């Protein structure tokens, strides 16, 4: 029997690793899938190809999957997320002179203190500081806004946030079009290498377990062939186990750097996947544990509460108006049931719950599972708040700055 053809759209970013490895390391083939990767240069195009059937699944920004389901910017089309492709992996990079005013250049600092200094600089600036994020409906945008608000900066009045395509982010910073960027790797490192920017924070410092890219499928497509979906999830899961094996970092770096995938510097990719971050040009790289979290601790599990948190941020940003029907629809995008059904045969630990109090784990914690043993690491937010998916309206009320 011939393998089932399956196409996944992606953007050339380090966190597109799992679908690429599922193909290149033979895990897709083992599951009888003839996997093709379709590279694009904008999320709009990745999403359009998914909606019009050019691709069967996509490496997508988690909030964009929710926005598309809710009909923001595109006709409402229900998307499903049966697998999370990774947590965090983004950074905030500022102009070197601006960075020097808010942090000790060269290493990670206390993001509260950095934010407080940034607030003072922003207030004193002649014109509003301008930040570039990769997409309106991106975790980058929501994480940046969350941090700014938490530090007393109004993201709509005190600063400007604009969209910058990741490949142009370093140019925009160098050319003075923006004062800071919040993008994924390797684009922060590109800016640092060129001396155009200094990393002042990584997003894992803002939310230690922040959901980032997801595997998105049209719900209809996912449900019409559950067996195929399950095989794909198993292939991606095995790609995840390979990704976190330090022995394979060189091999993985070489694959990702290839012209048909990231077409980027192997040195920069190697740094990102081994959590080695060069904060400023000419300094030594610093090991930032959990910079990019692609697999351990059930990182690939689509917690419904992660979708709920993103919906809350979309409401706070004024991208949509909170209502119960949309909130339910947003949460239904994440499909832990499909994840469990796919991975049960592998005997891997599966969380028993589908939703949790986000930011509620201060230290590693053993959690209930349907099989296996699972320890979840801390998932705190930088401001020590937590998010209870059962209490959206209270959360939104508390989040409005006084």
């Amino acid at each position, binding site marked *: 029997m011939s393998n089932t053809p399956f196409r996944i759209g992606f953007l050339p970013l380090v966190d597109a690793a799992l679908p690429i490895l599922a193909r290149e390391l033979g895990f897709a083939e083992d599951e009888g899938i003839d996997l093709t990767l379709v590279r694009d240069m904008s999320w709009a195009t990745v999403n359009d190809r998914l909606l*019009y059937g050019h691709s069967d699944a996509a490496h997508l920004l988690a909030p964009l999957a929710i926005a598309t389901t809710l009909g923001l910017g595109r006709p409402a089309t229900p998307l499903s997320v049966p697998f999370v492709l990774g947590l965090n992996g983004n950074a905030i990079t500022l102009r070197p002179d601006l960075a020097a005013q808010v942090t000790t250049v060269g290493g990670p600092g206390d993001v509260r203190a950095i934010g407080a200094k940034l607030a003072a600089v922003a207030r004193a600036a002649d014109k509003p500081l301008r930040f570039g994020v990769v997409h309106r409906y991106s975790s980058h945008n929501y994480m940046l806004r969350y941090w700014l608000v938490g530090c007393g900066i109004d993201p709509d009045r005190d600063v400007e946030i604009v969209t910058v395509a990741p490949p142009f982010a370093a140019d925009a910073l160098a050319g003075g079009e923006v004062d800071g960027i919040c993008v994924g790797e390797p684009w922060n490192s590109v800016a640092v290498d060129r001396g155009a920017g200094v990393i002042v924070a990584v997003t894992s410092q803002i939310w230690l377990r922040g959901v980032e890219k997801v595997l998105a499928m049209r719900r209809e497509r996912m449900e019409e062939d559950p067996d195929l979906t399950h095989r794909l999830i198993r292939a991606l899961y095995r790609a995840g186990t390979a990704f976190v094996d330090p022995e394979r970092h060189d091999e993985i770096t070489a694959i990702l750097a290839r012209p048909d995938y990231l077409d980027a510097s192997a040195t920069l990719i190697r740094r990102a996947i081994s959590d080695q971050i060069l904060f400023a040009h000419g300094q030594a790289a610093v090991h930032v544990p959990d910079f990019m979290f692609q697999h351990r601790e059930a990182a690939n599990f689509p917690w419904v509460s992660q979708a709920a948190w993103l919906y809350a941020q979309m409401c706070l940003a004024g991208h949509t108006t909170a209502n119960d029907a949309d909130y339910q629809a947003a949460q239904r995008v994440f499909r832990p049931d499909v994840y469990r059904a796919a991975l049960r045969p592998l005997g891997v630990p599966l969380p028993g719950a589908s939703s949790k109090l986000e930011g509620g784990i201060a230290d590693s914690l053993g959690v209930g599972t349907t099989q296996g043993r699972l320890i979840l690491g801390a998932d705190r937010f930088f401001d020590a708040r937590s998010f209870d998916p059962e209490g959206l309206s209270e959360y939104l009320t508390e989040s409005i700055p006084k």
Partner: protein
Amino acid sequence: MRIAIIDTSTTRAAIISEGLKEAGLDDLVLIDGHGPLVAQIEAANPEVVLINLENPSRDVLEEYFVVSRALARPIAMFVDQSNPEATAAAVDAGVSAYIIDGLSKQRIMPVVDLAVRRFNAFARLQAELNEAKSALADRAMIDKAKALLMKKRGIDEPAAYAALRKAAMDSGRRIGDVADTIVTAARLMGDL
């Protein structure tokens, strides 16, 4: 009706604008996407924007349309679900369109159809060009292989070509590939 064309390929942009002009649509603005995109769009103030799907600036453009303070905001053609075939044809061709909300469909559809046809024509041109290039390379390789065979086996040119063609037929390969193998082998053996 003012139409802005944003394309990473200047050749394709020229092919599209030529087609639009022939159809009597000559209020065109060409934007190559290397300069500040948003400022150029703002200055052009178009009613229709055509942009190639592989353009990295689509996300920037969509964000600008969402936050634009202009009274008439362009929206993605994809938002209009009344004509799914037209949309699918556009995605297939690799073009996307943004259209001022409220612009009549009778006026816009010919523009989109034309853009799709021109995109496809460009893709065909590209394919033909690639084919011509590879045919030329094959030609050169076949000539070299023929010369080798003629010298080595003391046969004439038609016989050398016939031998190549038979080998290609027998092994189910392209004649250019067979010639390439012979030339590579000869080079390794020190005959070249």
